[in-house]
């Protein structure tokens, strides 16, 4: 792999990282609006407000960067970057199409993805603690508790796929994919996607940022670009979770078309799942904190274990 | 790669961990120092595994086991710390001397005793 090639791949990943979350965000604006009988942004950019998020970015850039007096300055300022960067690293290893259409193939890609996504939590924790605000601290604590609880079912569901494919490499998993994996891993897909939603703190699992009770959780004190970074990390998270679910459970580039168009399938599945994320946000009310924990420990984890058992049985049966 | 580099790094890290365990008063910080020491051991294990080219990969396997044990340890340790904090209102090991012998309850010996307790827990 030459230097130019590496450079190109990195640039491509950065471009994807900077544009796709915006597309998802704009989709959320519009889809949410229409699901509520509204129109959503209509002015910025002319045609149906397509440039709304660009305008938002400009607005964020103009705002004053406020750091509370009692806050821990350095940690406070560093937190958005810690929250944002892991998702970029994860995007690097998600395969889009067959034959090396991936930023960087990692041997233990699945573990890498889950490990690096776990670091993103630190950003919320740092923000929550460093803001010198009790709501932020509560948000940070809730984030930590929620993330610790939902990491387990997510890992178990991912382990089921790894078990089925016999490899941890993401392209390897896709290489071993057959269409009947979708029904086979259906429970796992549900668990993974739901736990992923909870990891992202998306509604209905948005207890840590529940705006009606603890303002905006860990991000309460943030303004301007740093706040924008947190928002961007949320949407990048949607992208990553959707792409991962598509790759692990829906067969990524596999589809009824020539393989050269595989990347189209990946994108299609990713955006369909992103739409589901938005759809769920509009439809369901927020879970209470105890309901949240109970759901993780008494519903998702047993389901994930069941999926593991099913995977094991089928695997033994077909081999 | 020279084996000395990872070995020396591990030795230094371990010493830093020792300092942390001995010098810290907050229980959580002591636990963190224990983690540092465990990691120094892990580094050694991995380095020697690579050096010996062990066909069983005992070093890496043991590293994985150590990491798992460390995770279990920190979970239990923090549960204990939180319980202590809830009942006693402090996470300061110099003041958790209730199990010590009252005749020897000199302030200098307190941290070591608590560290001993902590080790036993870990």
């Amino acid at each position, binding site marked *: 792999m030459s230097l130019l090639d590496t450079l190109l791949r990195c640039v491509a990943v950065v471009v994807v990282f900077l544009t796709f979350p915006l597309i998802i965000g704009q989709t959320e604006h519009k889809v949410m609006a229409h699901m509520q009988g509204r129109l959503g942004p209509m002015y910025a950019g002319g045609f149906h407000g397509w440039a709304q998020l660009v305008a938002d970015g400009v607005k964020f850039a103009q705002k004053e960067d406020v750091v509370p007096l009692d806050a821990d300055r350095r940690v406070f300022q560093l937190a958005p970057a810690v929250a944002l960067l892991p998702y970029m690293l994860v995007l690097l290893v998600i395969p889009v199409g067959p034959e090396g259409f991936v930023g960087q193939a990692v041997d233990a890609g699945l573990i890498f993805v889950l490990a690096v996504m776990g670091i993103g939590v630190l950003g919320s924790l740092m923000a929550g603690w460093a803001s010198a605000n009790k709501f932020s601290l509560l948000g940070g*604590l809730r984030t930590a508790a929620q993330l610790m609880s939902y990491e387990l079912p997510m890992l178990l569901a991912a382990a089921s796929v790894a078990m089925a494919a016999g490899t941890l490499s993401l392209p390897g998993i896709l290489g071993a994919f057959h269409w009947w994996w979708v029904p086979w891993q259906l429970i796992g897909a549900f668990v993974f996607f739901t736990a992923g939603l909870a990891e992202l703190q998306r509604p209905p699992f948005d207890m840590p940022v529940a705006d009606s009770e603890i303002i905006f959780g860990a991000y309460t004190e943030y303004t301007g670009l740093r706040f924008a970074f947190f928002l961007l990390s949320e949407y990048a998270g949607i992208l990553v979770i959707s792409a991962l679910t598509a790759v692990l459970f829906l067969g990524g580039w596999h589809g009824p078309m020539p393989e050269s168009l595989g990347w189209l399938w990946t994108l299609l599945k990713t955006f369909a799942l992103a739409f589901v994320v938005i759809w769920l946000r509009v439809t369901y009310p927020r879970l209470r904190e105890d309901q949240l924990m109970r759901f993780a420990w008494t519903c998702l984890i047993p389901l994930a274990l069941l999926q593991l058992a099913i995977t094991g049985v089928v695997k033994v049966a077909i081999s | 790669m020279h084996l000395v580099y990872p070995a020396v790094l591990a030795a230094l890290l371990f010493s830093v961990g020792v300092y942390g365990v001995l*010098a810290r008063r907050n229980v959580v910080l002591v636990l963190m120092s224990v983690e540092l020491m465990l990691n120094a051991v892990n580094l050694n294990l991995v380095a020697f595994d690579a050096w010996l080219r062990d066909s069983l990969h005992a070093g890496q396997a043991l590293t994985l086991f150590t990491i798992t044990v460390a995770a279990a340890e920190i979970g239990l340790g923090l549960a204990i710390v939180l319980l202590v904090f809830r009942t006693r209102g402090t996470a300061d090991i110099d003041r958790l001397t209730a199990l010590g012998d009252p005749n020897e309850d000199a302030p200098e010996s307190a941290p070591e005793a608590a560290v001993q307790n902590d080790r036993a827990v870990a």
Partner: protein
Amino acid sequence: MSLLAAAGSLDPAARSFLSPTGVEIVFLLVGLAVLGSAVISVTTRQLVHAALWLVVALGGLAIEFLLLTAEFVAWVQVLIYLGSVVVLVLFGLMLTKAPIGRSPDANSGNRWVALGVALAAAGTLVTLVVDAFRTSWVDLGAGGGSTRVTGEYLFRYWVLPFEALSVLLLAALVGAIVLSRTGKGRVPKPRAGKLRAGKPVGTNGRAASATTARPTASTPPVQES
């Protein structure tokens, strides 16, 4: 990992400390960062900063594992240490009310003794290690720690310890749950502030529950944190 393979195949004549390979330079730089952040982590008086510097140290160690070709171990390190252990530690620090800024009682009085012990340990260990392994050379072959290799040795030769570990984890899980459960009336309510002076520990829980049971008693009710 082609770089590592190249490093492993260097001939012995080039193995001088004065002409380090690329991997060694990276290892040294990352090692310095790890050591520095570890030192800050055990000396800083700001509790949460200590945990965050620990993150840097542990993350650096993951990179060191990568350089030593233990790829799987490195990712597990990131997953478990950075993703869970440090988050738990931060969680614990927040729950025990870590303040922003310096806490005066982070270090105990025997810092100098501790420093002495640590320096002595460092001196002894480093002398020993340098003396023993001065000429040892690690041949870093690629794939020594890939997932396939890891899986093979873990489930071919180390199955029994692996299973034993699962029992240990289960025990730890149960233990943590038992410890953090607040039974009805048995475990006293959380309270902040100072120790109750002159009260033996054994009766502490009972005393607290007695006060919560009879709020009209002469002892003031327990303050909630």
